[in-house]
């Protein structure tokens, strides 16, 4: 069984690598067409090209995720750990989300304790985790309600605790066990964001655990969810 699993993930990894090339080629063709260097486009053509670009971006993300998953399953998922400020990283990510948040009628608040120490992990991967938490909170807001996201960082012993609280649609209790599994998507999530892959949280879990921290979530009293993780402080 173990051998079968290994072969499967090796094959997945090869297939994902093979897909990278055609995806980047299509991207190049789209770029040339969209730039109108070889001919003017009408509005409909522009719209369709933009749709193709969006779908292609989803394919690219899936391929990246499949490669990450293969690495995780094969025990080859390695982080480039260094000292960094989780606070500064979070601030940067929130800045990047500002326009999208405004466009979707969502407000993001950031609360942190004073004099927080640095953490020890891979800043690029941790950035992906934070981005995933915030983008989930925005995507799965209640459509009729103003979105509110509260990000906080606190010190808890030798760890920093990062949390992302939203007032969104939440996750049904029956699905709690599946949240960090591959390809999990709640019914409502699929309706609100058909482009989602259901792979982000699975990879986030691997990132946090590989960093020596813990990841989890809880249902809020009112509405929405709070996703959190801990990371060890640097010595």
């Amino acid at each position, binding site marked *: 069984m173990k051998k079968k699993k290994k072969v499967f993930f090796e094959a997945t990894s090869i297939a994902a690598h093979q897909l*990278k090339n055609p995806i980047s080629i299509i991207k190049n063709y789209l770029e040339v067409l969209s730039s109108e260097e070889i001919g003017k486009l009408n509005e409909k053509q522009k719209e369709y090209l933009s749709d193709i670009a969006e779908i292609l971006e989803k394919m690219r993300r899936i391929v990246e995720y499949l490669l990450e998953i293969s690495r995780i399953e094969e025990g080859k998922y390695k982080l480039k750990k260094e000292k960094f400020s989780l606070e500064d990283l979070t601030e940067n990510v929130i800045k990047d989300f500002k326009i999208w948040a405004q466009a979707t009628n969502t407000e993001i608040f950031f609360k942190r304790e004073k004099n927080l120490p640095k953490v020890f992990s891979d800043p690029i991967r941790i950035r992906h985790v934070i981005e995933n938490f915030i983008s989930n909170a925005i995507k799965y807001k209640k459509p009729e309600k103003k979105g509110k996201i509260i990000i906080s960082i606190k010190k808890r012993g030798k760890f920093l605790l990062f949390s992302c609280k939203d007032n969104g649609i939440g996750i049904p209790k029956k699905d709690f066990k599946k949240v960090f599994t591959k390809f999990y998507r709640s019914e409502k999530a699929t309706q609100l964001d058909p482009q989602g892959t259901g792979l982000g949280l699975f990879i986030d879990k691997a990132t946090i655990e590989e960093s020596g921290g813990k990841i989890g979530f809880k249902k809020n009293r009112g509405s929405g969810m709070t996703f959190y993780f801990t990371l060890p402080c640097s010595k």
Partner: protein
Amino acid sequence: MIQKKKKILFVEDDKFLRKVYKEKFERAGFEFLEAITGQEGIHKALIEKPDLILLDLMLPGKNGFEVLIDLKSNPKTKKIPVIILSNLGQESDRKKGLSLGALDYLVKPEISLSEVVNKVKEYFLKLEK
């Protein structure tokens, strides 16, 4: 004064990628030559003396690293700048490419075609200064 077009040699086995790169580079004012295999790339580098080579790594026969070693060890081609353009995005590949003498290492899925053209233009602009 009419400036001579800069000659780019693209060593890449994928015909679609060669086609779209040719379109873009020719529109940007370059002369664009193509080679499908590493061996052909080395041969064209010797005959055509391009101003710059864009080199893929996963090529049939001789791979891109081997091509780079050959180019850099031949006095007739060692001064031709080589930019690696590959799908391999691992840090170890990047380091290897640069240590073998590549001018730059670009990862295809991470860079747009316009950015590649701009990188090449920037390189020639720097040379002129």
